[in-house]
């Protein structure tokens, strides 16, 4: 361990980190203490920032690439259609696509392939010595820090930032799931209701109760503010259950296929102002529901095959939805 540390200090100094030396003096003291109390075995998955702060392409990365990679990925040869001898070439990647993905070394082939086990057939460089631990660390940090080139451009691309969708944004506005809600969700799941948490903050849920015989409506009411998508495509869904879902302020999609909801019960849905999708196929619902549907401001799609809707009712429905 001491040997390793010494090498590390030497490397850092050789590479011009004068301040590192000072820093190391007291780090070494701490290290000695730590080892005395036997905490040398650190948690394996706990990754630690080493003393080097900012990795610079010219000083740290280019020399590694020059020594270990240019021979096969340079001017003379372009194995795998990959060149590593210029920032532009690194950015454009090789036959297998980008070699740097976001700020994630583990998904970036440039780091990942070099960090493989030495006896793995895919390891890079495929000829000559593997990269040293220090070199790997530099590569890793460089990618984590955004793989910047001297011109300030990154190699990681922008597609890595998962775009937020509407549900993600909505999920930000709701409080975290409370303990009581957690219990309700567990109880519902135990009874066979499928509940999937959605959105960036995982504060929304999709509920599928089409495969259960009975549903504990009290539990359902407990989480009703979080329901954005409900599947009650089964005879288990009656007016009473619909009353429950009708209280969901953010309900977007509602499946009522094969349900036994009545025309009167359906009117409760007039409160679902965010409802965008409604499927009432194979139900006994008829023209009486058209005024209720027509007043739902966000509704875009209605599916209605095998219902009691007459041609007249469908036409009214179309006009109502079309006028939006």
């Amino acid at each position: 361990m001491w040997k390793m540390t010494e090498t590390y200090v030497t490397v850092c100094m050789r590479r011009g980190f004068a301040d590192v030396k000072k820093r190391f003096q007291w780090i070494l003291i701490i290290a000695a203490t730590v080892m005395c109390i036997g905490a040398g075995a650190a948690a394996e998955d706990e990754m630690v920032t080493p003393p080097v702060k900012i990795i610079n392409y010219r000083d740290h990365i280019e020399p590694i690439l020059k020594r270990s990679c240019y021979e096969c990925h340079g001017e003379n040869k372009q194995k795998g259609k990959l060149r590593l001898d210029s920032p532009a070439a690194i950015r454009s990647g090789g036959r297998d696509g980008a070699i740097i993905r976001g700020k994630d070394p583990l998904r970036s082939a440039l780091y990942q392939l070099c960090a493989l086990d030495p006896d793995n057939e895919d390891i890079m460089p495929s000829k000559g010595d593997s990269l040293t631990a220090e070199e790997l660390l530099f590569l890793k940090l460089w990618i984590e820090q955004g793989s910047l080139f001297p011109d300030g451009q990154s190699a990681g691309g922008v597609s890595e930032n998962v775009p937020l969708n509407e549900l993600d944004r909505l999920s930000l506005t709701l409080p975290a799931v409370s303990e009581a809600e957690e219990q309700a969700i567990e109880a519902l799941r135990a009874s066979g209701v499928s509940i999937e948490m959605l959105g960036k903050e995982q504060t929304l849920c999709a509920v599928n109760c089409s495969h259960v015989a009975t549903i504990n409506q009290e539990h359902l009411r407990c989480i009703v503010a979080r329901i954005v998508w409900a599947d009650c495509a089964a005879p288990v869904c009656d007016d009473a259950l619909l009353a429950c879902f009708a209280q969901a302020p953010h309900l977007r999609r509602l499946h009522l296929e094969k349900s036994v909801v009545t025309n009167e019960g359906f009117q409760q849905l007039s409160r679902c102002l965010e409802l965008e999708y409604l499927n009432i196929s194979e139900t006994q619902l008829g023209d009486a529901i058209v005024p209720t549907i027509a007043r739902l401001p966000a509704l875009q799609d209605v599916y209605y095959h095998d219902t009691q809707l007459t041609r007249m009712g469908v036409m009214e429905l179309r006009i109502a939805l079309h006028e939006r």
Partner: protein
Amino acid sequence: MTVFSRRQFIFSCASALCASSLARLHASESEVPDYRHPTARNIIYIFLSGGMSHIDTFDLKPNWKDQGPVTSCATDVDGLFVNALLPGCAKNMKHTALIRSLTSTQGAHETGRYMMRTNYPQRGTIVHPSIGSWSVYYKGTENNHIPGHVVIGAGSTHPGAGYMETKCAPLPIGDPRKGLQNSRRSKTISPERFDKRFELLQAVNAPFDAAYNVKEVRAYKDVYEEALALMRSQDLDAFDVNKEPSYMHQSYGDHTFGQSCLLARRLVEHDVRFVEIELGGWDTHLENFERLDELLPIFDQGYSALLSDLEQRGLLDETLVVVGTEFGRTPALTTDGNGRGHHPSAYSCLLAGGGIRGGTVYGATDERGAEVVDKPVRIQDFNATIAHAIGLPIDQRMYAPDGRPFTVGNTGAPLYELFR
């Protein structure tokens, strides 16, 4: 030993050196938020086994000398042309994202199929799970009475659940018209008697199950219990395409592939999350054009009937339909002038419905269709896109029984641009 042993060594050295507060600070920064926003609930994956010729189907090159006797037709997307034998696909391009820049290094059928299905290169030491099994692993089954992963018409080389437990394994269906065979209780045994027999079986097994609580023993138990749940379930009808009216059979086509698509739609209606359909015969080394004349109408009818039917039922928004194949075929015709060889470096696949921005063409190949010239998509990226669509945590590590870490995305980056 894991692949990161060397790194772990230096990190544990470094951890010992640096103050622990520093470590925590960094750990909190590097945590990848594990959130999911699915754009689809279900997946129907149509696997064209053998290697569909991209240049004769979705990536036509009319000015290329070896294009052969292929006529093109306009689609419902401006400026996009496909083979005239695919009129149904042409009408549904508004729901479809066409990826023309898939590129892989797997030029043999088995390894190519394996990689498409599991997202990992085939190795002798382990069998990786297919994407459908990843889906069941993370999301469970929505309908507890029937399996969440069904594979129709695939051969025995399908990787299935790989190293995962049997409950993630696909239920194989051979002939869609026959549905799930041997799944009903024999008429000669009353339900009471059957239950009594099962109780006896359980009583005999219980001590063994308790003494050997390992994966293989649990697998037997899971299979029994799932089979019984299925046998008693109302949802057994989901497997019976004969319950469909005859006009439905006609619109999907009176061939195994069409009926498989119809079965897939029924299964999705019963909340089976992942259905894979295999359509073979695309390995057109000989008589490429004659074979495509037979295959394309079959594929086109089943696939376009499936999209239209899902759309009419309000399910297309929630169901991602994937058309995948293991590789493309050589733009140059073989010496006898009528066949095409394996060509993994550029090929086409489709994604439709399920939150996909329809009418998209992603990536491009050169003037011969030989090499990708724009936006290359690796198999890993393609599968990560599918995993993203059903909301799987792409980067979350799962450890195989031998301790090796795997992720469903395997370094792939989802093509977010393809989603609405």
